[in-house]
């Protein structure tokens, strides 16, 4: 329930707001900071209070196990990885000045940025970097980032300003793994009681499930940044409370405006929407090793049933892009094939598979905004093709219980990734989250070759071949890439659209300023 404290919302203002939304999106499309005009030029000082979705009492300051949105926002404020994904989803140096492969890509060297210091003033040393990766891959307590470092044999000090990553197999894309936000560099003597990193903000206070506060890291390496003196992150588990806090001026910015409410929120004069195209995706997962999904015709029939345009309209209120069962839309090699809803062909395929009156149970859970809604819309569409889909709604912890990765027909959520890192996460036999139990020999050999192929042109061909295989017989039904819509007060500047799928300019609050 949104209870405005400003002027009441009239139909006219709502329409005006809608026009304003279009304008903001257009501006954002140009890549400039959409809010800069209202907020004025960058200004040092002030406090930025941000309402962040989700979180709970299990909130953590652990740099290597962030789970919820507030966790990620804190991680990105306190710590930095060697590399980082910028707003356009390209790799940029961060703690490392450079990360380069040796010939053959079986080893990579990271050169630490000259003069970079932790919050306590100590310089970052190669020992710290080595200790960081030991901590992530600690066999007794592997952190959430550990799974992607299966090929990492060893990290060693190479010189007084560089470390060397020794791999068990060639990997020309290893630098992408180093840019994950769960790989922040911390000192060798790191402890959670004294959460020190190289991020733009220093730790001030933290109450799990409620709020955390940070102060400016004066020794930060990016010139001028951060702009604000103090950053406060406030958890909001409920959409209405978060929106109310923004509209009543209790916070300066919020992440994740529900897509069905963007026009309402945007119609307030004092508020700016920040709309970002993302590569995040909310797939349906079909387990390819159990009936009826072990029959590729059933999988393809379900994919033909999905009305992707309607899903984007109803679930995302039209704010997003349709997808055709492939992920990694920002990968330079992203295939963009066509697949239209075709109920007749779907029925034919099912008839040929001997399953004319298919009846399925779809496990759904509010694991991300839009999942339960997507399940409902898809079930409605399937009924038109004679497929009865019963929804079984479970709570999030049940969804991620021991049955997670065992559900036969369920849903999932992933943020922006390029093709090969994503495939390593979810489509290979050794993937930590192979939700569809996808186990295709041809596919695996293509991906394996691509992962260690050094020639970019050949690698590109292999990545495209892998996508074609998934398009023809994979277990994911991917219907769309939702936009991310955040909102902030007009006086907040510097926040720009960001493709990572993380909210509010990738939770990089060093970029934001507040006008006086």
């Amino acid at each position, binding site marked *: *329930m*949104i*209870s*405005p404290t400003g002027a009441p*919302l009239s139909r006219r203002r*709502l329409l005006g707001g809608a026009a304003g939304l279009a304008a903001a999106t257009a501006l954002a499309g140009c890549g400039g900071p959409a809010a800069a005009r209202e907020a004025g030029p960058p200004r040092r000082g002030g406090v930025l209070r941000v309402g962040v979705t989700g979180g709970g009492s299990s909130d953590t300051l652990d740099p290597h196990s962030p789970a919820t949105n507030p966790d990620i926002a804190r991680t990105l404020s306190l710590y930095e990885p060697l590399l980082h994904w910028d707003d356009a989803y390209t790799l940029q140096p961060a703690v490392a000045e450079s990360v380069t492969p040796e010939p053959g890509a079986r080893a990579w060297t990271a050169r630490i940025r000259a003069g970079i210091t932790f919050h306590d003033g100590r310089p970052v040393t190669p020992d710290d970097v080595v200790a960081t990766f030991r901590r992530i891959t600690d066999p007794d307590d592997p952190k959430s980032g550990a799974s992607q470092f299966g090929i990492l044999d060893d990290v060693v000090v190479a010189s007084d300003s560089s470390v060397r990553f020794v791999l068990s197999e060639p990997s020309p894309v290893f630098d992408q793994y180093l840019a994950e936000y769960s790989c922040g560099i911390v000192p060798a003597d790191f402890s959670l009681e004294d959460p020190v990193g190289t991020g733009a903000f220093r730790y001030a206070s933290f109450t799990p499930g409620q709020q955390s506060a940070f102060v400016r890291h004066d020794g930060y390496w990016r010139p001028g940044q951060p702009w604000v003196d103090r950053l406060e992150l406030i958890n909001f588990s409920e*959409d*209405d409370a978060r929106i109310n806090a923004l509209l009543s001026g209790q916070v300066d910015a919020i992440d994740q405006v*529900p897509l*069905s*409410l963007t026009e*309402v929120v945007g119609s307030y004069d004092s508020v700016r929407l920040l709309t970002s195209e993302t590569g995040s995706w909310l797939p349906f997962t079909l387990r390819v090793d159990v009936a009826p999904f072990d029959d590729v015709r059933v999988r393809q029939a379900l994919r033909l049933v999905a009305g992707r345009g*309607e899903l984007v*309209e*109803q*679930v995302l*209120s*039209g704010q997003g892009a349709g997808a055709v069962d492939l992920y990694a839309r920002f990968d330079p090699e992203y295939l963009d094939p066509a697949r239209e809803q075709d109920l007749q062909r779907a029925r034919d395929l099912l008839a040929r598979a001997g399953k004319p009156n298919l009846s399925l149970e779809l496990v759904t859970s509010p694991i991300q905004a839009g999942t*339960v*809604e997507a399940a*409902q*819309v898809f*079930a*409605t569409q399937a*009924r038109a093709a004679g497929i009865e889909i019963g*929804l*079984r*709604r*479970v709570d999030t912890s*049940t969804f991620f219980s021991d049955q997670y990765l065992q559900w036969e027909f369920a849903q999932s959520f992933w943020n922006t990734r390029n093709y090969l890192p994503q495939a390593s996460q979810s489509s290979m036999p050794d993937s930590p989250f192979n939700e569809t139990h996808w186990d295709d020999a041809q596919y695996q050999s293509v991906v394996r070759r691509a992962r260690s192929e050094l020639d970019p042109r050949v690698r590109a061909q292999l990545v495209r071949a892998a996508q074609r295989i998934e398009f023809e017989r994979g277990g994911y039904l991917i219907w769309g890439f939702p936009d991310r819509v955040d909102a902030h007060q007009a006086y907040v500047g510097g926040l720009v659209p960001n493709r990572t799928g993380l909210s509010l300019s990738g939770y990089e609050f060093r970029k934001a300023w507040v006008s006086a």
Partner: protein
Amino acid sequence: MTAATSAPAGLLRRTFRRRQARVGAALTLLVVAVALLGPVLGPLLTGYGVDDFAGRPFRAEGLAGTDDLGRDVLTRFLAGGGPVLASAVAATAIGIVGGAVLGMLAGYSGTTGSRLDPLIMRGGDVLLSFPQLVLALLAVAVLGSSGWLLVLVIGITHIPRVARVARQATLSVAGQDYVLAARMYGMPRRRILATEVLPNITGPLMVELGLRLTYSIGYVASLSFLGLGVQPPAADWGLQINENRIALTVAPWGVLLPVLAIAVLTVGTNMVTDALAKESADTTGGVA
């Protein structure tokens, strides 16, 4: 005996001589009619099916706008009364039947000095030490949310409350000559309870029936409102309120229609119950 069997009919006739009861019945019937006819009338009236998409979410399209998925609010409202009514009636039935049986057993055996009475009543005390909603939440936490579970929990938690009333009424009847006579003739307990006791405690039981029905509607709707009752994509009043309340400012009908329907329904049943209680108290001279 003839007097006993005609008692409920007579009580009802006298009750509906009161204007309050007639107004209550009219309100109740209005909502019941909406719930029963709505699923058929809805699509005819609005042109949309329950699952049809009428536009983007939370728009003003149609008579009452669209809901969180862009479906027609009015159609879904008209289709959404069935689950509330069915669950509430089922829970009430469990509570009344279970409570009447246990209460009569307890009351009757209380007069014979059996240990059954304290056993039943102390067992009830344990259930009575939870608010009904909290017990339902405990059940959901343990077993997951499902419609029948909630019906069962609400019904079971009605039982001790109904049993108290039934026991009290039985105690006042059990000492009557016709019961003592039946007992002397060696009539089995089951038959005494069914033919001598039950017909003479229908007044208080009918009041309980109305009361428990009113509460059941409230609990069923509350649990759906908390997201723990009927699950999507079903059309259900409680769930509809839950799904649409975030947009109360822009699309109020998705919340207001079901809220008003539940309000009218519970006010209606309560007015009838209240009239029934007054009439029953006047008849028996007891305290309702």
